[in-house]
């Protein structure tokens, strides 16, 4: 169990780091895909099977396709894919990120948040659906409203002629 987890973890981190340095936009999309799939595998290891499937269907399936379509539509010059110009930002970004990670890890360590790996099967989907349709029903409906807004908004924004 441990090893699979470390493998997938390493894959995810590798994908993220590759994403940092890719010049080619499609390669960047593929790196992101790698991260997403690794994460889905980690969900399975943790026992949240439904979420893993949903991740692959939604994220990897829908959102990444969206990204690739956008990349196809917009022609990009080679220089656009470099790092930004501002020297201050280049100097400060990495330390800021590292400090952030360090702080978060410190918080996590102090609270001693141990995550159990699932030894048997997946979660109870019954329980999950109970939560969705009972306790979080309102939030669920609102999310669907949000998706509607997103769709309408995206179409409106990107139309050439209203």
């Amino acid at each position, binding site marked *: 169990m441990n090893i699979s987890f470390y493998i997938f973890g390493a894959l995810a981190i590798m994908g993220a780091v590759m994403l940092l340095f890719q010049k080619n936009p499609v390669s960047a999309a593929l790196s992101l895909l790698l991260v997403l799939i690794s994460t889905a595998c980690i969900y399975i290891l943790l026992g949240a099977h439904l979420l893993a499937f949903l991740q692959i269907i939604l994220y990897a399936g829908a959102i990444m396709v969206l990204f690739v379509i956008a990349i196809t539509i917009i022609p990009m010059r080679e220089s656009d894919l470099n790092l*930004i110009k501002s020297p201050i*930002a280049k100097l400060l*970004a990495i330390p*800021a990120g590292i*400090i*952030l990670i360090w702080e978060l890890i*410190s*918080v996590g360590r102090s609270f001693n948040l141990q995550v159990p790996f699932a030894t048997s099967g997946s979660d109870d989907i019954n329980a999950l659906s109970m939560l969705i349709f009972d306790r979080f029903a309102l939030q669920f409906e609102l999310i669907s409203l949000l998706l509607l807004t997103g769709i309408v908004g995206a179409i409106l924004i990107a139309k050439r002629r209203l």
Partner: protein
Amino acid sequence: METNIYSLLKWIPFVPLMGFIVNGLIGRKLPEKLAGIIGSSAIGISFIISILSFLKLINLPEGERLLNDRLYTWIASGNLNISISLHFDALSAVMALVVSGVSFLIHVYSIGYMAGDKGFSRYFAYLNLFVFFMLILVLADSLLIMFVGWEGVGLCSYLLIGFWYEDNEKASAGKKAFIVNRVGDAGFIIGLILLFYLLGNKGIFAFDFQSLSHHIPLIAGESFFGINALFLIGLLLFLGATGKSAQFPLYVWLPDAMAGPTPVSALIHAATMVTAGVYMLTRMYFLYELVPSALSVVLAVGCFTAVLGATIGLLQTDIKKVLAYSTISQIGYMFMAVGAGAFAAGVFHLMTHAFFKAVLFLGAGSVIHGLHGEQDMRKMGGLRADMKWTFLVMGLAWLAISGIPPFAGFFSKDMILESVFAGGNKIIWFAGLITAAMTAYYISRLIVLTFFGEKRGHSAHESPAVMTIPLGILAVLCIAGGFIDIPHFLEKWEGSHHEISKGTEDLLIGLSVFAGIAGITFAFFIQKSGRAERVKETLSSVYTVILNKFYVDEIYDYLFVRTPRWFSDKICFRFFDAGIIDGGIVNGSARIVYNIGSILRRLQSGNAQSYALIFVAGVVMIIYFVLKRFI
């Protein structure tokens, strides 16, 4: 002493006030003669009432000679209760009679002198206003009311000196008079404040002269910053007197004041306003008797001024300026008398000086009027034949001022010199003697240059009767004035003086007369045969210094005009106002805000990632503080 109410008193100053109002409001629409008659008769009525009051006064038994008239309460606040009331005792009687009498004659004279001037009614209005204030000054029964009159005469002096205000120089002369007076008045006010404060501390809040004379000894021991308080007050009041009476160091306005019409010079700057200082000191004799050191200062200043005025007067070429410096010198004599403690002698000389100086000025005015405005003596000469009457009266005044018996000036001047000598101040007496000689010299020089010798200028015509008759009356007073026994009348103010033997007294009289005659002969000697030129050459540098009035005006200009102006401009204005306040504080704060703004503006780059960076920094900080709390 018991006071008697005499309600006619208030009309002495108020009739001239009414004359001022009438002439001021409708004078322009009246024909000249009528305005002149209104102005003169106002003073005339005032004079008649003064005489009536005087008669009533002397009918009272001695020791009770005081008339009062209470007008209304001016300030009634807490303990302080100041009412406007008038006070008529022997001293006020003398002053009121002199003021109203001489004013009346000068008013009549002015009808002739100012004929045709377009400001005719304004002139009479101002002159009436002046007499009103002067009478308030001499009739006031408290220091505060007297100060009202004091300021008022200063104002009228300004108005009248700058009467022909279209001429810039004349207007400036008026301003100079007022400003220099103001300096003196500042001293006066500070002295008053000190007096009120010290008396108030002792719980006394009444400031009329009677209560002052009772209560002043209470504060005799107080001191202020180590100086005896009464001495300080005495000096400060005297400073006011130097301003008003044109003594050193505040005399510089009087020669410039000759820019006004000649009758004004006669009235204000010879007979009345400039004597206000002497009157004030005499009124406050009870204070000065307690601080002999202050009197010594008065004596020294008076003597110095007398010598200074006479010296400068020796060489002046403008006829009115000679008389101006002569006035400065003669008032110096009056202050010498006061300083020696002989207040009555000072007032006596005040009266005789009023007579002969008025004649001299009015006579000079007659000459100027006859020569159509010429005032430079070098352009006169030989007028003895043309203006016989003027020559006659001026001759009488000339003899009076030179101290020749039995004319008026002899008695008063001699009394002063005697008192000074008797007080033990031999050097000052000698200076006074030399000044008497110089006085005789410069007046004789004036007479010679104007009336004798060949005609260097135009011919002149004699003045109209309206001008010559007042001259005549005044000339008679020059002769007779010496016999009015003022010192006996004013014996309360006679002051204690040491007795001197009859022999010494006769010697002193002889010396004074000798000084006068010496001056006259010397003048004739030098002026007539042209030896003046040779004297000028031999003493040329001294001559120039004296001719330029010892450069006092220039020194004052440098010290008191240029220096403050430089200071205000360079330091106060450029450095403080424009530099520090405008530039540093006002503009500076704006600039600081602007600069900070332009630095902070760089945060708004429009670049999403820089915003994100700040965002991340914020998140890092917050988590840090969470960490700190929970770990």
